[in-house]
């Protein structure tokens, strides 16, 4: 019995898990996670810019979960479980998030990420300016700016996956990398 928990702990250690969360993301949880991460990032031997990028991407990911996560059956709106994890290896920090979305939103979201992934640094910046200027404000977020901003801050392609769960929802997984930049 005790082996089971030890093995889990061992694997979290070996995979350099900084943070692992599953549950509903609300305002209190966002502030708490950010507070924990600020303390943890202060302890990381990284340049300020890397910390800022991590923090920024983390905020966008959590706010995506806060605004867009659905429940597994779309009905229990108080059970909009999502996951958030942060870990690192020799080269990168990784922020992963996962949440259920309505199946009819998959194509639009995939197109949006593909578009962002197809752009180089300069084009991404031009696209950012265009969307900043043209899109209407949505109270749920920056109207498409989130993915663009994460890609800009990451400097890497966004990794993602969709897993069909039932005839109503898909699970959307997103992995954002942030290059280490040791001084």
């Amino acid at each position, binding site marked *: 019995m005790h082996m089971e928990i030890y093995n889990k702990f061992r694997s979290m250690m070996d995979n350099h898990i900084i943070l692992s969360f599953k549950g509903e993301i609300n305002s209190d949880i966002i502030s708490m996670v950010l507070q924990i991460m600020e303390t943890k990032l202060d302890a990381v031997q990284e340049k300020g810019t890397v910390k800022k990028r991590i923090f920024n991407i983390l905020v966008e990911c959590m706010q995506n979960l806060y605004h867009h996560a659905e429940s597994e059956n779309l009905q229990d709106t108080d059970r909009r479980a999502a996951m958030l994890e942060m870990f690192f290896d020799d080269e990168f920090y990784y922020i992963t998030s996962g949440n259920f979305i309505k199946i009819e939103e998959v194509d639009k979201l995939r197109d949006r990420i593909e578009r962002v992934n197809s752009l180089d640094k300069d084009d991404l*910046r031009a696209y*950012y*300016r265009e969307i900043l200027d043209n899109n209407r404000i949505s109270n749920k977020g920056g109207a498409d700016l989130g993915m663009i901003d994460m890609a800009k801050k990451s400097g890497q392609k966004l990794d993602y996956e969709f897993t069909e769960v039932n005839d109503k929802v898909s699970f959307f997984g997103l992995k954002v990398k942030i290059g280490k930049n040791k001084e």
Partner: protein
Amino acid sequence: MDNLIIEGTKQTPSINFNAGSGILEISGRSIPENTFEFFNPVLLWLEAYSQVAGEKTVINVKLEYFNTSSSKYILEIFKRLRSLLNDGKDVNVKWYYEEDDEEMMETGEDYQDVSGLDFEIIPIEE
């Protein structure tokens, strides 16, 4: 008219808008989940201000970071100020960034480009 003073929190910026002097300042971080709630009073104040503004307005922007939903509202602030420019008044944006934060500097350039206002982009030494 009254000045607009809002104390900053861990999620929302400090606002110090002085109608009499025409010096406006926004500083700190802006990462609230519900951006409308925070920014709507700020935009309403600016609308009233545009009726009484003097010849010169200076806005000091000293943001450490902000989320993408705030970025739309920050542009709205600049658009409100742009209307002063159209009335023949002087508007100067001082966009501050921490010296090593190239991204915040570029964001300043992006806002300058999109808003059509005059920006001074100023590094802060750490």
